[in-house]
């Protein structure tokens, strides 16, 4: 999350009135950036990871764990740590420490949840292979620094979701639910970061939507679960706010765990990676090629089996965040005929992406979403401004949304040297891939953000997945790989990734043959001899070696996608990465470290190592205090979080959680 702008935020009906204004200015800012940066060339690969933490507070005597709402205090402590500042770290939002000295210390950032922290490396990573080995130790350093600025009984845990969030109890200090901003019957307004942006975001999403957000997660049907399951924690008799009617109007679905606030989604932790591309073309190519990998990465990192004290029948957080920020009106959702709104919108602002943007000859029209919703006037304006059809469609698609948080002070003058209005829309479109133009007034290039992964319990795993994604991008660019498939299949894959143990039991649409191909030429005699350079051979049929799109892809297991498919041309992502590594000079120690990371991913894919979702679910179901009824009690939750802490510290070296960690860390 970037720097937090501030000012006087507009309440919903007011913000709605200026939405067109903000969009228009945002588009002008985008065009200014585009014209300035479209020719930017030869940027190095720089990349960064973002780790999000839950701050938990243990009471060892009572065997209780709660969320600590001390984000502000902890950030304040971090921001005033002289030693941290001297090393270039700190909290950019509060004050900047720019005295760089040796290794740059990590930086910390606020997040939506008042119980969350985000930490990033102090300086971006490069592609020196030794850099790749620094990632994990930097992550460990971050956790250590964060821990040092907490109470002894607090811990920065990297679980996606706090198992008891929304039980009306497990927060410290405690506040009663049902505040004016969130109007949630489960969590208080104080659950959100008090910075004006966050409560406004939550309140305006609710107001735009016309009711509270609605999250229904299928409950895990265990042996003794009362069936049909009616979420026993829902209070149908509240009358504080008009939105209290939601549950009486059927918001809580049978056989589902019901949640009603942005905090249930935006309060979960992700692992995100951002890359700088060489130029805009490479950025557009990476955006497209990484998109089909998103659902696979989501399934592989699955870590979210518990919500609000119940075992869920899904393994990942994605759809819950999607629903937690879904500001669509009944008209946009298709529940009512269109009258005031402009269009029906099939996806939440937080969803899998719907566009391909690369000007790549391999991008077939059939891969694009034929029903893509976009604002035709904005598209026209962007194309008048010189932008090409594909990219103009992409931004005109993002700009179908309203800005949610608008500061009154920002509406006075349009400043084309800033990007605030553009970012207002851009950064509240939380798609699984994000294409990021260079920020104004900096030397940063075009970037791509990979957003689907769930945070992992250990820094080892988080480093492994980060490095894996980096290596995959290098393999894509070096080997000229092609993962294109119709983008609707990726949307479907994203749903599939939610299934319990999808990584083991489900199949995902994936391109059969990602390899580029030499083409035979028409007639050996009539062509000039071509030799050691890339052969400029004519295709047998002018540029149409294309069969039906449906023949290009098939259903594969995650194991096949990651480790390769026997008896087929599909090599597997890990063998592709290994082929890439075989083509570059890597020293033995680095290669052996990288092998540990790749082994973890191989193991997760082939099932020999469990995902955190599977492990936590198994831990709960094996717990002596679990009644086989889907209910995760406070006592069980305490043991779950304690177990996560132990795994974070031991990484399986003590034999604990070896089902998940395997032997990965045994030798080191």
């Amino acid at each position, binding site marked *: 999350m970037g720097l937090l702008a501030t000012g006087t935020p507009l309440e919903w009906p007011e913000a709605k009135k200026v939405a067109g204004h903000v969009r228009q200015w945002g588009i002008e800012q985008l065009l200014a950036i585009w014209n300035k940066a479209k020719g930017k060339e030869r940027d190095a690969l720089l990349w960064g990871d973002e780790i999000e933490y839950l701050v938990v507070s243990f009471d060892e005597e009572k065997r209780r764990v709660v969320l600590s709402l001390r984000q502000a205090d902890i950030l304040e402590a971090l921001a005033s740590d002289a030693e941290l500042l001297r090393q270039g770290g700190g909290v950019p939002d509060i004050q900047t420490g720019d005295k760089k000295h040796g290794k740059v210390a990590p930086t910390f950032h606020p997040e939506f949840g008042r119980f969350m922290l985000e930490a990033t490396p102090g300086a971006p990573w490069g592609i020196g292979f030794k850099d790749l080995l620094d990632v994990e130790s930097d992550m460990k350093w971050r956790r250590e620094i964060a821990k040092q600025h907490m109470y002894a009984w607090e811990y920065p845990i990297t679980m996606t979701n706090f198992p008891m969030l929304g039980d009306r109890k497990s927060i410290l200090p405690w506040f009663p639910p049902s505040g004016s901003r969130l109007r949630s019957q489960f969590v208080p307004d104080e659950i959100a970061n008090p910075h004006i942006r966050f409560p406004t975001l939550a309140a305006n999403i609710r107001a735009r939507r016309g009711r509270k957000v609605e999250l229904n997660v299928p409950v895990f049907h265990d042996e003794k679960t009362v069936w049909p399951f009616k979420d026993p924690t829902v209070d149908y008799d509240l009358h504080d706010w008009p939105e209290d009617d939601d549950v009486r109007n059927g918001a809580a679905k049978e056989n589902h765990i019901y949640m009603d606030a942005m905090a249930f989604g935006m309060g979960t932790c992700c692992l995100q990676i951002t890359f700088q591309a060489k130029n805009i073309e490479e950025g557009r190519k990476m955006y497209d090629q990484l998109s089909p990998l998103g659902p696979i990465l989501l399934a592989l990192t699955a870590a979210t089996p518990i919500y609000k004290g119940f075992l869920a029948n899904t393994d990942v957080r994605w759809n819950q965040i999607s629903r937690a920020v879904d500001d669509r009106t009944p008209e946009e959702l298709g529940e009512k005929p269109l009258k005031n709104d402009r269009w029906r919108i099939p996806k939440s602002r937080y969803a899998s992406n719907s566009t391909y943007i690369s000007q790549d000859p391999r991008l077939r029209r059939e891969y694009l979403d034929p029903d893509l919703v976009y604002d035709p006037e904005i598209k026209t304006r962007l194309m008048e401004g010189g932008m090409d059809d594909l990219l103009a469609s992409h931004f005109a698609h993002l700009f179908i949304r309203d800005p949610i948080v608008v500061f009154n002070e920002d509406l006075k003058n349009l400043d084309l040297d800033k990007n605030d209005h553009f970012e207002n829309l851009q950064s509240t479109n939380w798609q699984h891939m994000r294409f990021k133009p260079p920020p104004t007034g900096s030397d940063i290039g075009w970037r791509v953000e990979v957003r689907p992964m769930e945070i992992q319990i250990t820094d080892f795993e988080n480093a492994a997945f980060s490095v894996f994604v980096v290596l995959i991008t290098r393999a894509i660019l070096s080997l000229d790989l092609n993962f294109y498939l119709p983008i609707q299949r990726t949307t479907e894959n994203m749903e599939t990734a939610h299934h319990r143990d999808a990584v083991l039991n489900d199949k995902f649409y994936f391109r059969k043959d990602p390899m580029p191909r030499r083409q035979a030429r028409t*007639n050996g005699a009539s062509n000039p001899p071509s030799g050691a350079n890339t052969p400029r051979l004519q295709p047998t049929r002018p540029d149409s070696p294309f069969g039906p799109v449906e023949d290009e892809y098939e259903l594969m297991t995650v194991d096949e996608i990651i480790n390769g498919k026997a008896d087929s041309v599909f090599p597997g992502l890990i063998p592709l990465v290994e082929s890439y590594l075989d083509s570059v000079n890597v020293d033995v120690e680095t290669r052996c470290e990288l092998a540990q990371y790749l082994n973890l991913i191989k193991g997760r894919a082939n099932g020999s190592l469990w995902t955190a979702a599977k492990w936590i679910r198994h831990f709960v179901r094996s717990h002596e205090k679990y009644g086989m009824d889907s209910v995760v009690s406070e006592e069980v939750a305490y043991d779950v979080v304690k177990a996560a802490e132990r795994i974070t510290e031991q990484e399986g070296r003590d034999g604990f959680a070896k089902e998940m960690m395997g032997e990965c860390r045994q030798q080191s």
Partner: protein
Amino acid sequence: MKLILSTSNIMGAGSSIRRSTKSKSNSELISSLRSNFEAHYTTTNGLSNGDAKPVKANYEVWTNRKENCLEVPALEFADSALQEEREQYDITSKLFYLPGAKIAEREKQTREALDLVLQDLHMPSVDLLIVSFPGIYFDEEEDCPDKISTRGPVESEPETMQSQIETWKVLEKLYEEGLVKKLGVAELGHDRLLSFLDRTQIKPSVDQINLRDCCSVPKDLMALAKSRSVELLVHNDCSNILPRGTTRELLGPGEGGAGVLAEPTKTGDKRKSLHGEESTNGDAPGGDALRGEVQPQWVVKYTAVVKNRGVVENKGYFAVAEVVE
């Protein structure tokens, strides 16, 4: 007759993928040679009709003969292969001296190999030149069955240290001429590396070893490398990267062969009747395939990596073999 075999840039040609860690590690070279030959000899013989069956063009159409040397396929260095400036790249080449080749001609072989690489990349120098001597495996006594299986056929005993040191002098010359910035060796264990370090003027700065799945480097080797500033790099090649039999198969008349070499039998009539159909390209002069025994001499592998982006922009192989009647 000397044959120069080339793969052209195999990045983006789809043939460089290691299928599994168990697969033979010269498969990249073999499959990329094969696919480059195929791309050159396959013609549909009818231009626009997509239904035309591909047929194999006579080798004389797509190779280039210069005196006693045949380029397979014809070489062309007209276009610059790399997009960026020299300093943007890390260029590595690795020269495999093959078993059974003429040791006396090492200087000529080495210069020719480097020259082909520099011509192809349009670059004045390479950053690192690694040499691999036949019959040397650093993991001789180690317990790692995977490695043993990837050596390729053993066609030779290791040559003497004296002979290797003689060859090294050639590399030192290239270094002094500025054509190579760093020198490296491959597969040297502790003892051999120590001898090398003691007996050479320009010391190897790299020792490239094959680890496969076994991530255990002998401690003495690790210590030696650290103390003498030799970087231990990982590779996945087998030393006997281009065995005789494989070469004959690649170039021979059989299915998937390039049709450059004739059947090893002396019965020419039989050969013609068997394979007459494959060389029916009307435009092509019907040249006879080469006869004789093929003896691979050396292989050079080269890679150009954009340093600050980690992207492999160009990778390929040249190989030279002699055909002796």
